[in-house]
């Protein structure tokens, strides 16, 4: 990228908080904006509700000119209300900053891995779960045990499409059928089953072209009902990267 292109310089500043001697005031501010954006946590997205008496006290103290209760109907100034939770999150789970992922740990036990930090992200994902359908059907010679609708998360690469996941038993072997329609990424996609407490997770392996992921026999799908598709950097670290593209819950 050419440092002379102002758009490129601005984009670089949004990603690097380290000040440079030749920073313009705008670039310095952009660094602060980027630093704040990368430091955002769920707490920053959850705003307190207003006590109903607070406005009355302000109106009384502010005196003339401050009339008309907030939320007054016709005739009051059409001010934008503070974005609601739903708008605030754009209908998605709160931002899970990619740069904020905790240090990737060394290999843990082969199946269960503990990741408390995911709790918030997955709890938030409950917000985005689309309607799921529970039905048992015959399909491809197998029996459908559970289904989930996976929806893209904010950290997904744009263009990531929703996906349907199905747990199918064929000849006594359970498989997760999951056909992904996802854009290329710098790393690779990996499929996980995660428990509701977000205490443990089971990797079903990197994304496969045939869309079939064998579920280990001892894994109780009911105990790991959250289907998660992560974006993994090709760094050889076998734990969840913390960056999820899609998620949904089996029912």
């Amino acid at each position, binding site marked *: 990228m050419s440092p002379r292109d102002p758009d490129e310089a*601005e984009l670089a500043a949004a990603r690097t908080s380290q000040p440079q001697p030749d920073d313009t005031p705008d670039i310095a501010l*952009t660094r602060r904006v980027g630093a704040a954006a990368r430091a955002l946590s769920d707490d920053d997205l959850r705003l*307190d509700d207003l006590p109903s008496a*607070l406005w009355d006290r302000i109106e009384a103290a502010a005196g003339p000119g401050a009339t008309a209760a907030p939320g007054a109907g016709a005739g009051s100034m059409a001010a934008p209300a503070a*974005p609601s939770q739903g708008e605030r999150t*754009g209908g998605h789970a709160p931002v899970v900053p*990619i740069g904020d992922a905790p240090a990737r740990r060394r290999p843990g036990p082969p199946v269960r891995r503990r990741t408390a930090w995911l709790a918030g992200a997955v709890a938030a994902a409950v917000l985005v779960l689309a309607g799921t359908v529970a039905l048992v059907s015959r399909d491809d010679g197998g029996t459908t045990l559970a289904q989930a609708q996976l929806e893209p998360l904010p950290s997904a690469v744009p263009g990531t499409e929703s996906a349907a996941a199905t747990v199918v038993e064929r000849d006594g072997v359970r498989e997760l059928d999951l056909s992904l329609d996802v854009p290329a990424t710098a790393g690779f996609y990996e499929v996980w089953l995660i428990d509701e407490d977000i205490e443990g997770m089971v990797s079903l392996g990197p994304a496969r072209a045939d869309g079939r992921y064998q579920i280990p026999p001892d894994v109780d799908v009911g105990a790991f009902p959250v289907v998660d598709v992560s974006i993994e950097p090709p760094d050889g670290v076998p734990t969840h990267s913390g960056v999820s593209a899609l998620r949904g819950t089996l029912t």
Partner: protein
Amino acid sequence: MGRDPNQTEPDDEPSIADIQLERAFAKGADDALAAAYRRYARMVLTFARRTVGPEAAEEVTQDVFVAAWRSRDNFDPDRGSLGGWLTGIARHKVTDALRRSQRVDARVERAGAYADRSPRAPEVDQVAERLLVADGLATLRPDVREVVEMAFYSDLTHEQIAEATGRPLGTVKSQIRRSLGTLRRHLEGLDVTA
């Protein structure tokens, strides 16, 4: 995430509403304080609660809006956003409240009780800036926000973002430029009262 790459709606609709509010507030228009309260009180209250604690938060919020209305002549939309300016006033109120409580803490400490932990000034600044950036992001249209999040959280170039989103390069560039401008304006408003 349905999106139409050919859509041509303006990408600054929410900020137009904010700008109208700012003008009305600066003029002292009827209802402008109520409108400002409706727009920003939750952020101010949250900022206060997270810095001075839940007990003092309501009083700080009340002080902020009353003080802001009385000094509305000092608010200049050309120097930053109303949200930033209100948060800057809140920062002053919070700092005052923390100083008072620290004096109380010192006395309590001498009396042998534990001192409450008060956030230090840098933390106050960080909470203020994060809440403002979160607010600014929340006002963006979802498809614009998606692009802006890639500006912050990925290392994709403009060209790669355009490719990934299927939008024209010029659209991606202008959406990022304008959104960063909106977010900077929030921090400028904060700095005015520093």
